[in-house]
């Protein structure tokens, strides 16, 4: 019993640490970009320590660099951060952290930690994956920011090592089981991607991803989304909302060897 439940937890922690370390290297790029934009090293570090969300940080740096309107720059950075609020809606029931610990856990809500948590079977593994990603990414991102701000960013581009592909590849791997299992998930993912790509030429960077939330809104509101097809998708009804509240069905599905990315 102990072994069967410990293995997914270990795996989740390992995946989270791996992803955190690989993506955190981009902190170098942020630190370098921030200083080039005219932010001080201290300002770059405050952003990484407290905002701790890459897209918003890059957006603010870009606004400062453009010599643009700081109010507009701040507004767009905060708008981009709203994505993390949306993630929180899902993570709240998935992780169900309580009390003061939630204040700390909130800092760790990012694309990466959300993706790792969603990719796990059951709550224990989701928590382990979330916390492992948070820990390793937070340390690497902040160390990278400092080093990049102090000049290490000029050593070379992360692209040389293919690190720019780590994020999207990891998100793909972590979404994969969701996409395989659910027709609704596939539709929403496709619609989200199409919305974001369609909006990209017309929006400041980052905003198209937030707009993709409309795909989830549409699927949630349309009665048609649940009614036709295979009927109220039995998979989704029992499994998806249950991931947070009933760890067992999801865990059982994972244990049944149905996790393609393993």
């Amino acid at each position, binding site marked *: 019993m102990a072994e069967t439940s410990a293995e997914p937890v270990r795996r989740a922690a390992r995946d989270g640490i*791996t992803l955190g370390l690989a993506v955190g290297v981009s902190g170098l790029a942020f630190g370098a970009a921030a200083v080039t934009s005219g932010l001080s090293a201290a300002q770059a570090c405050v952003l990484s320590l407290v905002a701790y969300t890459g897209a918003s940080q890059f957006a603010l740096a870009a606004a400062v660099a453009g010599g643009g309107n700081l109010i507009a720059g701040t507004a767009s950075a905060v708008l981009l951060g709203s994505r993390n609020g949306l993630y929180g809606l899902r993570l709240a029931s998935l992780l169900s952290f309580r009390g003061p610990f939630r204040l700390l856990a909130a800092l760790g809500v990012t694309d990466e930690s959300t993706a790792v948590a969603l990719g796990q079977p059951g709550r224990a593994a989701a928590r382990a994956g979330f916390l492992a990603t948070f820990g390793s990414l937070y340390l690497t991102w902040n160390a990278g920011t400092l080093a990049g701000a102090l000049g290490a960013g000029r050593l070379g581009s992360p692209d040389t090592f293919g690190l720019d592909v780590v994020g999207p590849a990891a998100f793909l791997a972590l979404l994969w089981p969701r996409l395989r299992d659910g027709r609704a998930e596939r539709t929403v993912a496709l619609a989200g991607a199409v919305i974001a790509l369609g909006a990209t030429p017309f929006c400041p960077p980052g905003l198209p991803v937030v707009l*993709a939330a409309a795909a989830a809104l549409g699927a*949630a509101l349309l009665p048609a989304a649940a009614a036709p097809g295979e009927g109220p998708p039995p998979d989704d009804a029992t499994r998806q909302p249950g991931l947070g509240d009933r760890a067992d069905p999801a865990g059982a599905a994972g244990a049944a060897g149905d996790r393609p990315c393993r």
Partner: protein
Amino acid sequence: MSGTWIAVLVTAVCCYALKLAGLTVPPRWLAHPRAQRFAVLVPVALLAALIAVQAVGRGESLAVDPARLAGLGAAAAALLLRAPFLVVILAAAGTAAALRALGVA
């Protein structure tokens, strides 16, 4: 205090507050099946959008980076072969890095 510092602090505090707000929404707000469905599907939509934008987006335009696309293709191939997470990541980064080093892409 300079305007830049104010912008930095407001951004930092608001970004944290948004994270906390999402995590502390009262459960009864999400009790309705449609709200629950939205909460479940929204990360799927956003992460899929991120994959798409990071794959072919460059700032405010769409640009094809052959090495990056090849890296993602390698990740997809590894997933179809049921490779472990670490292998998927290494295949993606390794493919992109190799193509760039060879000057192919």
